[in-house]
C-alpha cells in the first residue's frame, strides 16, 4: 500500500470512507512526517495533540455516519488565518504571542467539513513577500533542490510554508492566501496546485488582512481534484464579510469532466515580455499543445495594460496595508515596547515589531495616500486598475479561459534577489493582473526545467467561473503527467 502521507486528498478520502484506515492513523502518519521534516521550517506552530484529538472526533463522527466533505483529512493552515486558542502570528514579531479568541471563517469551514488541522504554516511576514524570507520565524526551505546542487531554495511566497508542507507530504493540503500571487507563485515553485478563487468566493473574516481589496484565500494541494475538494469546503458566502459574494458554492469536483472540446483559451501576447526565459516559454508552448490536443482552441489575445499591473499593485496593496496594519500598535494585543509617551510607545513597538519589508510597504503606502500625492499615486492606480480589469472583461468576450506562465522563473536560492525590493517584486509580474481584476487564477505544475525544478502554468478564469479553470487544469494535469517528486520525498 502507498504510504498514507503519499495519498492525494481524494485517495485519502476514499480510503477513510472504505475503512482502509482511520483518521487517527492518517493524522499520526502526517504528524510523524511533520516532525521528521522540521528542517524545512514549514510550520511556525505545530499542533499534533490538537490534530489527534480532532482525528479521534472525526473517526467518531464517521462511525455515526456524519462524515463531511473533508472528514478526517489532515491539512495545514497558513498562519495568517486566526485560529481560536492557537497562536496566530502572521509570521511577525508584533504578533509573536497572539492567541485569537475566534476562528476565521475559512478555517472554521474546514473544521466543519471534518478536516483535521496539523498546525500553522510559515509565510512571509503579513504575507508580504515572494520568497518566505521575510518571516520573523525564519525562511522556509523548498523541498526541491537543483539537480546536483544542495544549496537551499526558497519555496516562493507568501504561502511558502503551505506550499513546502504540501510538496513535502507533511500535509494533504494547506490553506493559502493570495494578494498578488501568494498562492500561485509558491505553488509553481514547489510543484503543486494552488488556486486563488474569485475575490469574494472565500470569506476574509478572521484572516489577518494585508490588502483588503485583493486578499483571497484558496487551497494548495497536490492535484487539481484535491483543489476542487478543498476549495468547495473553504468557500461560501459569509455575512460577516461585506465583500463576500452571496453565491452558492458549486460542486467543483463535478466540474472535472475531462471534456474541454471547443473551449477557447486566450494566450495573451503581453505575457511574453522581452527577456522571458526560454524554459518558461517552452513550458507555456507545451501547455498550449496539450490544450489543442484535448480539443480546445488557443486564441491570441491582448491585455494591453498588463505592463502597468505591477506598478499599480505596488501602490494599491501598500496603501491598504499601511492602514490595515495601523492596529498593531501595542495597545490591545501583540508586542509592546515601552516608551515615555503614547507616541513613543507606538513608534518603538512598530519599529521593533515589524520587519524591514513590512515597514517599507507601510511607508510606501503612507506616502501614496498622503496629502498632495493621493491623486498622483493612489487615485491614478485605481484608474489603471479599472483599465486592467476592463482588458480582461473584453478578453472574456471571446475566450473562456486564459493560459499564462505563473512566474518568470523557477525557485531561486535563499539569499538571491534580496538586495533590491523591485527585483523581488518582479516575481509577481504574471500573477498580479489577475489579483487586481479579482479573477480566479490557478497554478499547476507543468514540467521541470533543466535543473530539475518545477515550473508552473497559470489558468485565469471569468469571475466566479472556477469550474472552467479547474476543468481545464484537470485536463492539463492528465496531459502533463507530472510525477516528479522533491528531493528526499521518495516515490
Amino acid at each position: 500500500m502507498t504510504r498514507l502521507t503519499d495519498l492525494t486528498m481524494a485517495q485519502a478520502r476514499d480510503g477513510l470512507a472504505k475503512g482502509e484506515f482511520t483518521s487517527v492513523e492518517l493524522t499520526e502518519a502526517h504528524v510523524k512526517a511533520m516532525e521528521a521534516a522540521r528542517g524545512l521550517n514549514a510550520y511556525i506552530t505545530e499542533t499534533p495533540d490538537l490534530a489527534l484529538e480532532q482525528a479521534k472526533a472525526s473517526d467518531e463522527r464517521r462511525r455515526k455516519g456524519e462524515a463531511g466533505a473533508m472528514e478526517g483529512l489532515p491539512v495545514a493552515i497558513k498562519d495568517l488565518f486566526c485560529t481560536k486558542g492557537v497562536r496566530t502570528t502572521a509570521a511577525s514579531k508584533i504578533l509573536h504571542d497572539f492567541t485569537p479568541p475566534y476562528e476565521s471563517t475559512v478555517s472554521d469551514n474546514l473544521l466543519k467539513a471534518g478536516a483535521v488541522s496539523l498546525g500553522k504554516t510559515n509565510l512571509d511576514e503579513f504575507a508580504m513577500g515572494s520568497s518566505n524570507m521575510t518571516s520573523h520565524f525564519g525562511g522556509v526551505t523548498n523541498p526541491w533542490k537543483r539537480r546536483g546542487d544542495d544549496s537551499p531554495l526558497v519555496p516562493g511566497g507568501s504561502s511558502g510554508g503551505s506550499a513546502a508542507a504540501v510538496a513535502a507530504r507533511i500535509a494533504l493540503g494547506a490553506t493559502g492566501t493570495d494578494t498578488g500571487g501568494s498562492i500561485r507563485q509558491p505553488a509553481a515553485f514547489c510543484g503543486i496546485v494552488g488556486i486563488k478563487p474569485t475575490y469574494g468566493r472565500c470569506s476574509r473574516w478572521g484572516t489577518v488582512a494585508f490588502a483588503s481589496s485583493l486578499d483571497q484565500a484558496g487551497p494548495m494541494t497536490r492535484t487539481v481534484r484535491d483543489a476542487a475538494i478543498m476549495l468547495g469546503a473553504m468557500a461560501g458566502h459569509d455575512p460577516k464579510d461585506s465583500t463576500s459574494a452571496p453565491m452558492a458554492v458549486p460542486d467543483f469536483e463535478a466540474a472535472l469532466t475531462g471534456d474541454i472540446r471547443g473551449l477557447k483559451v486566450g494566450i495573451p501576447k503581453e505575457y511574453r515580455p522581452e527577456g522571458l526565459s526560454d524554459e518558461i516559454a517552452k513550458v507555456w508552448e507545451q501547455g498550449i499543445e496539450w490544450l489543442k490536443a484535448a480539443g480546445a482552441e488557443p486564441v491570441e489575445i491582448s491585455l494591453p495594460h498588463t505592463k502597468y499591473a505591477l506598478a499599480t499593485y505596488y501602490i494599491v496593496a501598500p496603501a491598504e496595508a499601511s492602514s490595515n496594519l495601523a492596529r498593531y500598535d501595542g495597545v490591545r494585543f501583540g508586542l509592546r515596547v515601552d516608551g515615555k509617551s503614547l507616541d513613543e510607545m507606538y513608534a518603538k513597538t512598530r519599529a521593533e515589531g515589524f520587519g524591514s519589508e513590512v515597514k517599507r510597504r507601510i511607508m510606501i503606502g503612507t506616502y501614496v495616500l498622503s496629502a498632495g500625492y493621493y491623486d498622483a499615486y493612489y487615485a491614478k492606480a485605481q484608474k489603471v486598475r479599472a483599465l486592467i480589469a476592463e482588458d480582461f472583461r473584453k478578453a472574456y468576450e471571446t475566450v473562456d479561459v486564459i493560459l499564462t506562465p505563473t512566474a518568470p522563473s523557477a525557485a531561486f536560492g535563499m539569499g538571491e534577489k534580496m538586495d533590491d525590493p523591485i527585483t523581488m517584486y518582479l516575481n509577481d509580474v504574471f500573477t498580479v493582473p489577475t489579483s487586481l481584476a479579482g479573477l480566479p487564477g490557478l497554478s499547476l505544475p507543468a514540467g521541470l526545467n533543466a535543473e530539475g525544478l518545477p515550473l508552473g502554468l497559470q489558468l485565469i478564469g471569468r469571475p466566479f467561473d472556477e469550474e472552467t479553470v479547474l476543468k481545464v487544469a484537470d485536463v492539463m494535469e492528465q496531459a502533463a503527467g507530472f510525477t516528479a517528486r522533491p528531493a528526499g520525498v521518495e516515490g
Partner: protein
Amino acid sequence: MSYIIQGETGEWEVVIGLEVHAQVISKSKLFSGAATDFGSEPNTQVSFIDAGMPGMLPVINEVCVEQAVRTGLGLKAQINKTSVFARKNYFYADLPQGYQISQYDQPIVGEGTIILDMPDGSTREVGIERLHLEQDAGKSMHDQHPTKSYIDLNRSGVALMEIVSKPDMRSPEEAGAYLKKLRSILRYLGTCDGNMEEGSMRCDCNVSVRKKGETGLRTRCEIKNVNSVRFVMQAIEHEAMRHVEIYESGGDIKQETRLFDPNKGETRSMRSKEQAHDYRYFPDPDLLPLVLEDELIERIKADLPELPDEKKDRFIRDFKLSPYDAGVLVADRATADFFETVASGRDAKMAANWVMGDFFGAMNRLGRSIENPPVTAENLGKLLDLIADNTISGRIAKEVFELMTETGKDPSVIVEEKGLKQVTDTGAIEQACQAVVDANADKVAEYKSGKDKLFGFFVGQVMKNTQGKANPAMVNEILKKLLA
C-alpha cells in the same frame, strides 16, 4: 439683531459654523453587533471588531443608515443615493483600528436647511453643508493612575452622525438657537436623544471674526467637544473676543484646535492636537458603496413625523397662537403633544396660557418634566372645561390647579370635595349682592354721586362673602342693576 464687537479699530462681526456629532439611536453599533447602552462596565460592550482585532471586518447596521436618511429628510436635505465609507487614518489610544470609518467626499446626506427661532420671535435660515455617518472612538481616562491612561472601548464603533453647518451664524445666540433647533428636530425624528451631558450630542465650533463689511473669511479656530448650549455660546463669545484682541494688537490668528474650559470661561490651545495631521482618507476596501433604494427613501419619507416647523405653522394657523407661543410649545415634541391634548376642542389661547404659565411654572418649581408632569394633560383639559362651563371661576381654577399638583386628583373631584363650585343661582347671587348693598349704604351713596371706581369694591365684597364662588359676570350684572 446683529452682534457686533466694538473694537478699538472698528466694528467686528463673528462668523460661526458648527459641527455636531449626534449619536444615532440604535440598539447595536454601526459596524458590529455590540450594544450601545450608556454607562455599562468598561469594555463589556465591545466586540472583537470594535477592539480592532486582526482579521475583523465591519458590516453596516441598516437602522443606522435609515436614521441618517431620516435625519437628512428632517433637515430638508439632499439624500445621496450612493455614498462611500472612507478611512480616516490616525493613531490614538482609543482608536483601535488606527483609523476611523467615516465618510469623506461622498457623504450620505448633502445640503439642507435649519430655520432658527430667535427669542424675539423672528426666524433665520442656516445652511447645512452635509451629514455623514461615522464611528465613535473609545474613551480615554487620564486620572485613574499616575502614569497611565485607561482605555474603555464601549463607545468604540457607536454610530455618529456628523452634521456640519455652513458658516452662516453671526452671534453666540444664533449658535445657541441652532443647537436647540437641531436637537429639537433630532428628538422629533427619534434619531438622537440630544443629551449633551451624556455626550450623545457634542459640538465643535468653528469661529472666526472679520471687520464689518469684509466679505472674505479670516482664519478660524476649532473649539472641540463643547458639551452644553450655554458653553457653546460662552466659548464662541470668548473666542471671538480673543481674535479681535489679537488682530487689534497687530497679531495674527493661527489655525488650530482649542478646548473650552468651562471653569475659567475661556479657550486654550490643545497641545495634543498640535502635531500636523494628514488623515490619508481613502475608500474603505472592507466596505462597498452604500446604495439606497428609492423605496427605502420613500418609506422613510412617508413615516416622518410632523416636524417642529410644520407643527409651529399649524399651531399658528389652527390655534391662532402667536409665533412666539407656537415656537415655545413645539420646541419639544412631548410638550407639543401635551399642549395639543389640552387644547383639543377647547379655547387654544387659554390652553396655551395655562400650559406656558401655571403648568410650566409648576413643572419648574417641582422639578418635574414633561414626561413626568405635575398634572396630566387630560386633567388640565378638564380644569379648562370647568372654567368654560362656569363650574368654577378663573381664580378658583388657580386654586384647584395647585391642589391638582399636590394630589394628582381629577379637578372635578377637587371642586366637589372642597365645595368650590361656582354659584350661578341668580337668587343666591342677588341675595348676596343685596346684602352688600344694604350693609354699605354710605358707599352706595358715594357711588351714586359719581365715584364709579367703587364698583370694584362692591364686586370684591360679594366675592369675598361667597368665598369666590359667585359667578363674576353675574355679580357684575346684578350689582349694576341694584346700583342703578
